[in-house]
């Protein structure tokens, strides 16, 4: 195996997150929070995730209190969910929506570069840049993000962008 190609795909950060993911396990939302839940499947491999997002209002703006999830998936999808949990917790919903869109952009780059502001915004999620080279794995990386997007929509937060 060309260790380099595989090491580029499976960055240590991804392996670490996959082994001990954040947000794993569904927990009750704090009292008073609005809760959105989504169930997403990857039909090609049967992987699935149930994701719950809890929102509170902060100065009238919706803020993500917590994200939690459970499901079955490969290291890419689990690590992606874990990183997403970190990037969403405590952020206002608009920021989270923008990050979801940035992550989608990253997945469809196919070798091109991302604007530096977007890179900063994505932080640890930039470790998934290598996934874009493997079209069959993009769905794995996106699974959790799409579930988050759907869950947010269910509590009335509509991240921009189409699809």
């Amino acid at each position, binding site marked *: *195996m*060309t260790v380099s*190609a*595989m090491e580029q*795909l*499976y960055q240590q950060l991804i*392996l670490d997150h*996959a*082994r001990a993911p954040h947000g794993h396990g569904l927990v009750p939302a704090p009292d008073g929070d609005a809760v959105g839940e989504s169930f997403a499947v990857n039909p*090609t*491999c*049967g*992987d*699935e995730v149930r994701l719950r997002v809890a929102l509170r209002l902060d100065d009238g703006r919706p803020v993500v209190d917590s994200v939690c999830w459970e499901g*079955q*998936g*490969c*290291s*890419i999808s*689990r690590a992606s969910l874990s990183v997403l949990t970190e990037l969403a917790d405590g952020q206002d919903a608009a920021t989270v929506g923008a990050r979801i869109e940035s992550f989608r952009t990253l997945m469809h780059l196919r070798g091109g570069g991302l604007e530096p502001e977007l890179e900063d915004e994505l932080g640890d999620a930039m470790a998934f840049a290598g996934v874009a080279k*493997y079209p069959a*794995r993009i769905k*794995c990386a996106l699974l959790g993000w799409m579930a988050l997007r759907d869950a947010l929509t269910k509590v009335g937060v509509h991240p921009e962008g189409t699809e």
Partner: protein
Amino acid sequence: MALVMTEKLGTHEFAAVRADFPLLARNVRDGRPLVYLDSAATAQKPEVVIDAEQDFYLHHNAAVHRGAHQLAEEATELFERARESVAALVGADPGEIVWTGNATGAINVLAHAIGHASLGRGGAAAQRFALAPGDEVVVTGAEHHSNLIPWQELCARTGATLRWIPVSDEGRILTNRLEDIVTDRCRVLAFTHASNVTGAVTPVAPFVARAHDVGALTVLDACQSVPNLPVDLHALGVDFAVFSGHKMLGPTGVGALYGRRELLEALPPANYGGLMVEVVTMESATYSMPPQRFEAGTQMVAQAVGMGAAAEYLRELGMDAVAEHERGITGRLLGGIAELDGVRVIGPTTSDQRLAVVSFVVDGVHAHDVGQLLDDAGVAVRVGHHCAQPLHRRFGIAATARASASVYTNEADVDTFLEALGRVRGFFGVSDRTAVAR
């Protein structure tokens, strides 16, 4: 094939077979030689198949069974000769082979035709097929979605009940449950000849015997058996069977429904339109004799010709020799996997009554990740549920990786695969005590 064959090939002679498959010479992922172990999903094609399809388009293309011109005659001749070749491969008469788009299409043709009989179409002769509330359709827990969902839907349309025979921990269909599950209420018993997940080969005789006792029709999913085993449908005694061209070294877009002549004659059509009729008025139509009755619209002629060439190619190799060759591959796969820590086969662990279709899980590493590392070594395997979610659920897993062989698979393929598989747990840093994901 390179050699003109008078004798069937011995096992060692399969080395020459590989040269017949041009695609196998290519490299993948940074110049690694391709190791293709995904033949159960779709097989690679020998040059004779590619040539047959191309030759049809280059020299003989015309509408079949129509037209008074020479091209139409030639095209019809090739089309019907392909039917004869396919029939000869599986021990059927040519008139018992209906062209379909694939095996899935074949099952749907049958299920729809039975549905139409259940609505009273096809007259008195078709009543033997009719389903009603109280009737049962029986499948098994090992089925591909293609041999499950059409029956679920047929039951939903007719009010019949779907039941299934479970599989053992080794992935074998529990033949000893036939008596209590296949009862007088059973009208259709649909089962796979060989599982595309566990590789287990079903003993057909007890199924046919039980169906006969209770007066049920048998439907055999022969997708995985026809490319890899000698199959004689007359000798097996099943009523219907289905298989796909693309899994038996033939083109995509073509498959076959086999039906015993007498049954096809009594069965109403599934699809309606041109080329399957005798007399048409504004009010109604009468239908052709089988197999044309089930071949509505312009057929996939070039692909059928290619499938015929594939059948001839397999017949020249000899299906006994193919099975013998693949038994050797199965043994090497199973033996090699047994030596690896943390790799578990889902299915029988001996080569007995089993195909070289080996699904497995690696403790602590998800199948997708296993497949990715194998791919990096040039090894193509399938990952996922292989269109058999209920079977995977039966084993409490969402996904497996699957290595599967064909006539061209050799020992070096297996060794490259095993070597790469042996590195998977190390790469993901999984010891026996830590688990990432399953």
